C-alpha cells in the first residue's frame, strides 16, 4: 500500500529495498497538446 516517506521507520534494523515515485504527476498529453496549439496560434500572430 502507498505510504509517505516520513512513515518509514528510521530505526528499522532491516534496511529493506523500497521503490519510490513522485506524488506529483507530469502534465497530461491533452494539456501539452493545448499548449502546443496556443503556441502555434501565437506564432502565427507574430
Amino acid at each position, binding site marked *: 500500500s*502507498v505510504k*509517505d*516517506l516520513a512513515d518509514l521507520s528510521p530505526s528499522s534494523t532491516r534496511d529493506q529495498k523500497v521503490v519510490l*515515485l*513522485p506524488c506529483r504527476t*507530469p*502534465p497530461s*498529453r491533452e494539456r501539452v497538446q493545448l499548449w502546443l496549439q496556443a503556441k502555434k496560434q501565437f506564432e502565427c500572430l507574430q
Partner: protein
Amino acid sequence: MMTTLTRQDLNFGQVVADILCEFLEVAIHLILYVREVYPSGIFQKRKKYNVPVQMSCHPELNQYIQDTLHCVKPLIEKNEAEKVVVVIMDKEHHPVERFVFEISQPPLLSISSETLLSHVEQLLRAVILKISVCDAVLENNPPGCTFTVLVHTREAATRNMEKVQVIKDFPWIVADEQEVHMTEPRLIPLKTMTSDIVKMQLYVEERAQKAS
C-alpha cells in the same frame, strides 16, 4: 597524471551524480519523444554528447523532469540509487514499458582525469543512440499513455531525499504493486556501459499484451 580517488573524496559523489542526472535528463526527454508519450511538436533537435537528440520545450514538463532528478540526485551521490526506471503507463495507469537504468558505482577508482570525461561521454553517447532507435524493437504503445519515474533504493537512504523534497515541494511515496509489477514482461537489453566511475545497464521491460 594518474589520480586515485575514493568515494569518500570531496565532491566525487557530486561529480558522478551531476554526470548521471544530466544524462538521465537527456534520456528521459528522448524516451518520451521516441515512445510518443507527448506530441512531437513540443520537441526540438539539440546536440548532446555530440549527437542529435530531441528535447522538450514545454516548460511544465521540463520543470517536472528537472524536479524529479533533483530529488533523485542525493541518492545517486551516495550510491544509493540501485535503479532509476522510466515507466510508461496506459490510460488505466498500468505499466506497458519500463526503461530500467541499473546503476552501480565502483568503490575505489584509479583514473586519469584527462581521459575520464571524454571516455564517459563516449559511453553515454552510445546509450543515447540505442534509446533513439529502440522503437524498432518495441511494439507500439496504446493511445493516451503517460509516464512516471521510479527509484529503487533502500529504506534508510530515503532520509537523504527528505530535505530536497521539502525544498522543492515535490514529495515522494513508496510505490504500490500496481505501479511496479508487470506480468511476464518481454526483456529487451539495450546497452551496458562500464567506466571508471559508473557502470550502467539499460534494458526495457515490455508488457506482452499492450492493448488493454
